[in-house]
């Protein structure tokens, strides 16, 4: 079994993040240990947004250039994005139960994130349903672009609506950051930055492996058509 250096580095980075969260990051005074779910939930949400934004970008460029590699990239990024969104949608409720007293509430951010997940699961199902490679690429490119319009809406939902979901502590809009919310303590901030880096690396490793798979499948499909 051959493991690439990228996969090994990503696995080591994720392991070191978990060790840092467990042993070297203080427990938050009010929420207790459950607050540490934040270090796995927020990076998963960041990666999911990144993944779907890149699906939309690659899809838009595909519709312009019609290069099949862009379609394979979009396909790969969508699947990896669904995995990370699944983590968001499972770790969030596991934080919500001890802190809110409920696993789920139909507030704007939770509901729109669930819709994002459905859209990209639909994207994967659509790809499985269309046999013609160029039609498949075209249909899924349109869905991939439209789905990503939810991303800014989800990001801004905590400001636009009265939601239960907390507002971000890092990366707030400048107008809010000026006069509210104390800064995150440096140990917590550094753990969060390490987590963001590690899970982004994990995304790149997954994306690379999935892209190779898409390429191999494309070649096998072309050979089967010409046989």
């Amino acid at each position, binding site marked *: 079994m051959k493991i690439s250096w990228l996969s090994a580095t990503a696995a080591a980075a*994720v392991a070191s993040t978990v060790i840092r969260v467990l042993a070297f990051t203080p427990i938050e005074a009010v929420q207790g240990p*459950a607050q540490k779910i934040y270090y796995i*939930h927020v990076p998963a949400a960041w990666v999911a947004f990144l993944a779907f934004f890149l699906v939309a970008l690659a899809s838009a460029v595909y519709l312009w250039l019609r290069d099949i590699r862009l379609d394979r990239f979009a396909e790969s990024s969508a699947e990896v994005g669904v995995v990370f969104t*699944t983590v968001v949608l499972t*770790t969030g409720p*596991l934080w919500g139960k*001890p802190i809110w007293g409920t696993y789920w509430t139909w507030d704007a951010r939770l509901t729109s994130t669930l819709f994002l997940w459905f859209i990209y699961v639909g994207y994967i199902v659509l790809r499985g349903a269309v046999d013609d490679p160029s039609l498949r690429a075209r249909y899924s490119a349109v869905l991939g672009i439209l789905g990503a319009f939810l991303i800014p809406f989800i990001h801004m939902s905590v400001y636009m609506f009265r939601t239960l979901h907390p507002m971000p502590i890092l990366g707030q809009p400048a107008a809010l950051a000026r006069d509210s919310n104390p800064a995150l303590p440096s140990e917590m901030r550094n753990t969060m930055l390490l987590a963001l880096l590690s899970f982004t690396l994990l995304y790149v490793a997954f994306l690379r492996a*999935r892209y190779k*798979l898409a390429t191999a499948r494309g070649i096998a499909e072309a050979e089967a058509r010409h046989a």
Partner: protein
Amino acid sequence: MPDNAKFFHLAYGVALTIYTVYALSLYLRGRRLRPPAR
């Protein structure tokens, strides 16, 4: 809130399991497409 530690452990367990299962699925799907070299 000491008993909420179980939710912390559960969340990490679930998330790391999802990532591991996906990594394994990528490996197995890749291997199925590439027959072993003779």
